[in-house]
């Protein structure tokens, strides 16, 4: 153990990050009871095996392994066995962990667990399996890009400005070797901290018994969890990324970077809610849709990507309204500290229990509670007594003055590039404009 710690520290020193060990014990079960349906969801989480452990030359390694595991399950008939029980298998990859999840009828849950255990502990694959998985991954990359250009553009813009890794790179995918994959798989199964997220109508004792075969005789010594948090470049903007499109609607996004994951969430979350998160229509909706009629959809969301936190403001004007919208939204964001309506909205969030409550109740489902519990266990973000009502105007103002400034804004536009370039020249002459094809985002 001591040796492992030393090695871990040495590695972190070499790549410039400090480790933060999760307080989650190995084989811990996060459990929530839900009797609304006779279903059970079990997520087996390998903490530390996410894509943040990939070096830049191996972007996509964790995702490729998840694809490979899924394809092997399909090829070897395990997926059919699970489907026969009404169980769905998912293998999603996130920044910090790799997950194998099963979801289906509670009555068949025990059988499903055994199928998954037998499969993952006897994982065997060949070079041709890997080549097939890589081919499918390349197709997935292209399909995902076509279906969800916004997410990819956002990731690309952040990778160019903050130094986080790109999600996807066709070049890196092509270069992944059999040995890379083999090593990853070995480390995955021996991940130091593997834990479970369970939602079920079964009681917790039954669930613990069901999970026993997975934990029994499991070796450790594989991936170790670290929260990478390199120093972010403080001068990132104003930068605009433009991709050409001949649509009559222009997709406009402003990313306002605001620190690192694990920092206190109250301020960015409160500001995002005042502006208007999806479903709860705040200032943006009132001003840009109801008063100016410039957009159909507009909103604000508070997000994280890898270790970076940011607010994303979106709007969808028609081509003929795009100049007015971009100019007014830019002014609106830069002048937010002087906007009396913004301060009224903050006051309302602080003082009117109902207004704050509307947003909180979404967090109360067993599914959301479980998510929050795991997030807190991993990141341990600071919590304050009194929630929103304890946030002062001075704190909000200081936050705005620090982050809602031109130098901290990354903009993304999807529309006719000549039109957007002209608008930016007029209204954001200081912005550094990058034009790129959508395809280049995954190259």
């Amino acid at each position, binding site marked *: 153990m001591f040796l492992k710690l030393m090695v871990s520290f040495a590695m972190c020193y070499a790549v410039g990050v400090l480790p933060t060990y999760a307080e989650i014990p190995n084989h811990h079960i996060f459990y929530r009871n*839900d*009797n*609304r*349906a*006779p*279903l059970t969801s079990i997520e087996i989480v390998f903490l530390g095996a996410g894509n943040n452990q990939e070096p830049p030359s191996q972007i996509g390694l964790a995702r490729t392994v998840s694809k490979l595991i899924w394809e092997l399950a*399909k090829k070897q008939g395990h*997926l*059919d066995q699970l*489907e*026969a*029980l*009404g*169980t*769905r298998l998912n293998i999603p990859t996130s920044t910090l962990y790799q997950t194998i999840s099963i*979801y*289906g*009828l509670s009555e*068949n849950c025990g059988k499903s667990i055994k199928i998954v255990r037998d499969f993952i502990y006897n994982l065997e694959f060949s070079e041709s399996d890997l080549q097939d998985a890589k081919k499918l991954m390349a*197709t997935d990359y292209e*399909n995902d890009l*076509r279906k969800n250009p916004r997410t990819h553009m956002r990731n690309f813009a952040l990778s160019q400005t903050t130094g986080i890794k790109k999600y996807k790179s066709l070049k890196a995918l092509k270069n992944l070797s059999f040995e890379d994959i083999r090593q990853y798989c070995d480390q995955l199964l021996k991940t130091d901290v593997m834990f479970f997220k369970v939602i079920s*109508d079964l009681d917790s004792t039954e669930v613990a018994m069901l999970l026993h075969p997975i934990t029994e005789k499991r070796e450790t010594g594989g991936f170790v969890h670290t929260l990478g948090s390199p120093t972010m470049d403080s001068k990132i903007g104003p930068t605009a990324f433009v991709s050409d499109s*001949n*649509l*009559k*609607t222009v997709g406009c996004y402003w990313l306002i970077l605001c620190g690192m994951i694990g920092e206190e969430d109250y301020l960015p979350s409160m500001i995002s809610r005042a502006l208007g998160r999806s*479903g*709860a*229509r*705040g200032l943006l*909706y*009132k001003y840009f*849709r*109801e*008063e100016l*009629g*410039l*957009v*159909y*959809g507009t909103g604000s969301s508070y997000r994280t990507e890898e270790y970076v936190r940011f607010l994303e403001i979106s709007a*969808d*004007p*028609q*081509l003929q*309204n795009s100049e007015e919208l971009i100019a007014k939204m830019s002014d609106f964001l830069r002048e937010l500290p002087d906007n009396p309506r913004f301060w009224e909205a903050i006051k*309302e969030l602080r003082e*009117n*229990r*109902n*207004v*704050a*409550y*509307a947003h909180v*109740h979404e967090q*109360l*489902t*067993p*599914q959301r509670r479980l998510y929050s519990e795991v997030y807190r266990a991993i990141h341990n973000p600071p919590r304050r007594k009194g929630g929103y009502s304890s946030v002062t105007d001075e704190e909000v103002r200081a936050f705005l003055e620090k982050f809602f400034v031109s130098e901290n804004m990354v903009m993304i536009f999807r529309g006719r590039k000549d039109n957007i370039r002209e608008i930016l020249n007029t209204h954001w002459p200081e912005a550094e404009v990058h034009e790129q094809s959508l395809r280049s985002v995954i190259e």
Partner: protein
Amino acid sequence: MKKIYAFIFFLVCVLPTSYCPAYQLIGTEVMSKELVAQHYTINSNLDAVIVVDRTIPTFEYHTYYSAGSADEEEGKQGRVHFLEHLISGTGSHEYGKLNQIVIENGGQKSAATSYHVTRFILRFPKDKFDLAVEIDRDRYYDTVINEEVVEKEKKIVLTERSRRRASATRGSLNIFFGLIYGKKNFDGLGTEAFIKQLDPVDLKDYYENFLRRQKRLVVVIGDVDIDHVLTKLDDAYSNEQISGESVIELPDPHYPSYEVLGRRLKRTVKSLSLTRFRKGWYIPNLGHRDYAGLLILERILERSSNSLKSSMVDSGLAKSFSMSVNSYKGFGLISCYAELSHDTSRNKLHTVIDAELEKLKSISEAELNAARNQQLTSMYSAFYNRLSMASSFGRAFASANDPLLYPKLIKDIESIRRDDIPRIINRYLRDYNSITHSLTVPEKKELLPRILSEYRIPVLALAGVGFLMLLGGFIVMLVWGGKKLHRKFS
């Protein structure tokens, strides 16, 4: 004296019980350990479904009108969607005020128009039930439709329209359903010109005499007290008054159009990244036992291996492939949708579909059970999601007039047997019972082959003449050269 006492006794005992609420319980379905759905009639035009779910201290309050964009006249589509914006956005208040009220009370609101249903969604903390009914009632009786709100909303609807038109998938869906409903320019949002010319008088008339006259369903799911819900709905709607004289009747239910059955149609557009292929088979509506069998069949066709989907995607024939079963007013549809490279042969797709269907006629018991389990998992999953559960009640009400058909479907799914599958395939999944549509790009042919194929006879004649001229020239040259040589050597 006895008579007086008797009279008082009568007043005390009989009169308080003589108040008879208008609502009536007409059905109950146990959905799971915790959830029970109760179906009531509130008045002749309004039903309610209530499901108590105390997981979160909030409730959903949805109102479904059983009319949508497919119920509108040809050339006048877009009014229901426009009204949906006005009712949801403004209601009985001045512009922007309703949104403020909802936010101040910790709520959320939204609305949507689909083919046969228009829905209005409210979500509030549990102590705001009276407010939800008040908003719903005020919207129903007093929605403001004047010049100011109509002009403001036009800008927003036009922006929404331009955003939607950017999607090729939606475009192909509109063409497909235009064929099914027998409408040329099927678009629930209406054409740009039609939206621009909408005026408040016409819209008000349409609201009073068409939309408000449709049957409605209120769905309440959440942390509520059933008696309180019923009392408030009864207070608000038991004496429902509908003004207006010239009732606009629903157009004749001429859908689905049977003229398009058995046809394979195509439309081309110049700029399109992938060809969109859609095929649908007419099936019975929700409520018919075969509907459950078709849901199971859909699961089998879409499973990850040894299925229609895997045959399409794993072979590279299609970039993506999905199936769906849906219920519409008076009919149902099982359909498949694929995105393909432009050069993929659609005939090959049909061959694969036919082969897979043929294979399924001898489905095993294990395969059937697997599909049934998957379908049950999928249906039970919706019990975690109040929004999706409420929508299912709403759709069942609008398409088959019985919201409880949705939870009853679970029993039907359990009753499907192995021999139902070949019977269902033979009965419904036949080419003559289907409609196929592809949205693709115009075919590009090489210039020379195209000229050769289109002008074969003149080209052959010209080539023949050319050949003869060359041959003649060669002979003349040969004779001339021969004579010259002859002269030289003689």
